[in-house]
């Protein structure tokens, strides 16, 4: 068991650098220099406080990304107004990095695929899944719009240094078992409150073998653990991913060998089955084969969200789908995480495959993930989803039930018309 040394964890190293200090300790409140600030629609609420603060100029337009994603194209007048506020603000402040309709995508995916966050960064965004970018070996955290206004004005932010929980993973993921299943399993252990205000650091041989998209899925769901951030140390995989796309110089830091961890969780994935988070909490995790035996009928299936709608996820789903049809009575919504992924899916014939099987393949956006745009559930309906949250009311009606799954299992559920294990399909 590691964890009682005096060294610094990865998040502590990064926060020390961001605040110009030699070392920081958990609980300390620091003033950190921000490397990247991201806003989505909630950023429209940043504009008011920014002006009320008496600020006139954004601290560094090259470090600000605006990516609209929740309602794209605008599906209500309210959303259209939010978009217009952001467009006007970007024009006024000469912010060049605005991902408007046509170049759009889910904000976190935009940051990932265009290299906006690099190892060692302190990145903040107005969305709670900003944690996803911790997969770059950065501290990436969600903040509110008023604090974002302070960041835009000053380039700095007060932060409480979080204690770190280390999750050490070993073993080999079995056939059909994915990074999503791994993070669900960890979530089942840590629970939705287990890492509140903490940093979760994933390490170990299994993590080191994961691709960047898989690492994104894992760090994405540290938000569901309540974590301030979720990190994976940068290595050759990170470096290769960012080689041609990094937008600014990196500072690839590593945790000290004698870092102090508040808690160490050991996970062995050998023999682990696929997992599913049942209603009404992402930590209500059970082995999928067990839940599949209950034959839970679904009305809707959603393959999308920042957790699992990258091209690799769409391919994984396509492998399961080939030769099958969507069950009658099931609405299957597929929404790629970005315009680039949409184009890639088009090129690979995936859009044709999904739509011929009976799915609706939408433009890239958050889509059905949050119950405010499209794919909204009626009372008592059931949805199988590759997204990250299943709280009451998340996708519409308060009593609608959501099961969170890997992309492959999501697609299997669309084919069977019930929560299904993809390994059971012929």
């Amino acid at each position: 068991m590691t964890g009682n040394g005096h060294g610094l964890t990865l998040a502590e190293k990064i926060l020390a650098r961001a605040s110009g200090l030699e070392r920081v300790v958990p609980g300390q409140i620091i003033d950190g220099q921000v490397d990247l600030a991201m806003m989505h629609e909630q950023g429209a609420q940043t504009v008011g406080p920014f002006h009320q603060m008496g600020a006139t100029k954004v601290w560094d337009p090259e470090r600000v990304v605006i990516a609209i994603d929740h309602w794209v194209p605008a599906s209500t007048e309210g959303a259209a107004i939010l978009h217009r506020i952001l467009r006007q603000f970007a024009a006024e402040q000469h912010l060049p990095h605005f991902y408007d309709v046509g170049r759009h995508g889910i904000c976190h995916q935009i940051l990932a695929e265009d290299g906006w966050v690099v190892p060692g960064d302190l990145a903040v965004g107005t969305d709670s899944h900003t944690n996803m970018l911790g997969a770059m070996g950065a501290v990436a955290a969600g903040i509110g719009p008023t604090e974002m206004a302070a960041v835009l004005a000053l380039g700095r932010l007060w932060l409480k240094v979080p204690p770190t929980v280390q999750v050490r993973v070993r073993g080999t993921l079995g056939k059909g078992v994915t990074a999503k299943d791994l993070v669900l399993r960890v979530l089942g252990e840590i629970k939705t409150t287990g890492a509140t205000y903490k940093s979760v650091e994933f390490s170990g041989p299994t993590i080191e073998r994961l691709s960047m998209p898989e690492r994104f899925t894992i760090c994405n769901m540290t938000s569901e653990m309540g974590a301030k951030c979720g990190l994976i140390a940068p290595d050759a995989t990170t470096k290769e991913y960012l080689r041609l796309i990094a937008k600014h110089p990196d500072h690839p830091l590593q945790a000290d060998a004698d870092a102090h961890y508040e808690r160490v969780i050991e996970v062995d994935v050998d023999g682990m089955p696929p997992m599913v988070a049942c209603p009404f909490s992402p930590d209500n995790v059970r082995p999928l084969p067990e839940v599949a035996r209950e034959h839970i009928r679904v009305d809707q299936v959603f393959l999308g969200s920042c957790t699992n709608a990258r091209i690799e996820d769409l391919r994984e789903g396509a492998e399961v789908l080939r030769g099958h049809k969507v069950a009658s009575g099931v609405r299957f919504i597929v929404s790629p995480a970005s315009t680039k992924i949409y184009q890639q899916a088009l090129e690979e014939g995936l859009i044709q495959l999904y739509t011929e099987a009976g799915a609706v393949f939408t433009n890239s956006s958050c889509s059905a993930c949050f119950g405010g745009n499209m794919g909204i559930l009626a009372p008592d309906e059931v949805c199988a989803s590759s997204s990250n949250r299943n709280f009451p009311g998340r996708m519409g009606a308060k009593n609608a039930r959501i099961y969170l799954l890997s992309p492959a299992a999501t697609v299997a559920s669309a084919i069977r018309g019930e929560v299904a294990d993809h390994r059971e399909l012929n």
Partner: protein
Amino acid sequence: MRDAIEGRVWTLGEDVDTDQIISGKYLTIIDPEELKKHVLEIALPEFAEAARPGDILIAGINLGCGSSREHAPAALKAIGVAAIVADSFARIFYRNSINLGLPAIEAQGVRQLFEAGDTARISLSGGTVTNVRTGRSVTFPPIPAHLLELLEVGGLVEKVRAELAARPSAAPA
């Protein structure tokens, strides 16, 4: 900022997420006055109608988990909630509340001391929350100086405004 806050209590359960405080369908509303009509619609349907300025919200663990929507504390503030006390808070909700100047107090064990309609008395400097009806109280660790200062000036907007105004020129450093 008054040191003592006293008010009528509304209670919430555990893991009340921001969706239950302001549902996803209202996220395009920015005006807090409009938002407050829908506050706690899912968790406490009668609240928006019956809440009075000065009321105190007392919740179990993990209050405000889920999406990082500032709409949630903004709506609570707009309807006049004087303080939120919970066994524990989700991170972003806690930050958002403090940054808006809305006292958020983490006091372990507080939820079980209260029933809806009780009167709570909070002493910020003393670190206590008392049920006036039963006389029972819980303590909470001192609020860090940095956060007390934020609450005292009325939130982050006021704080940054003072900082920017104090700069020799209006240009960012």
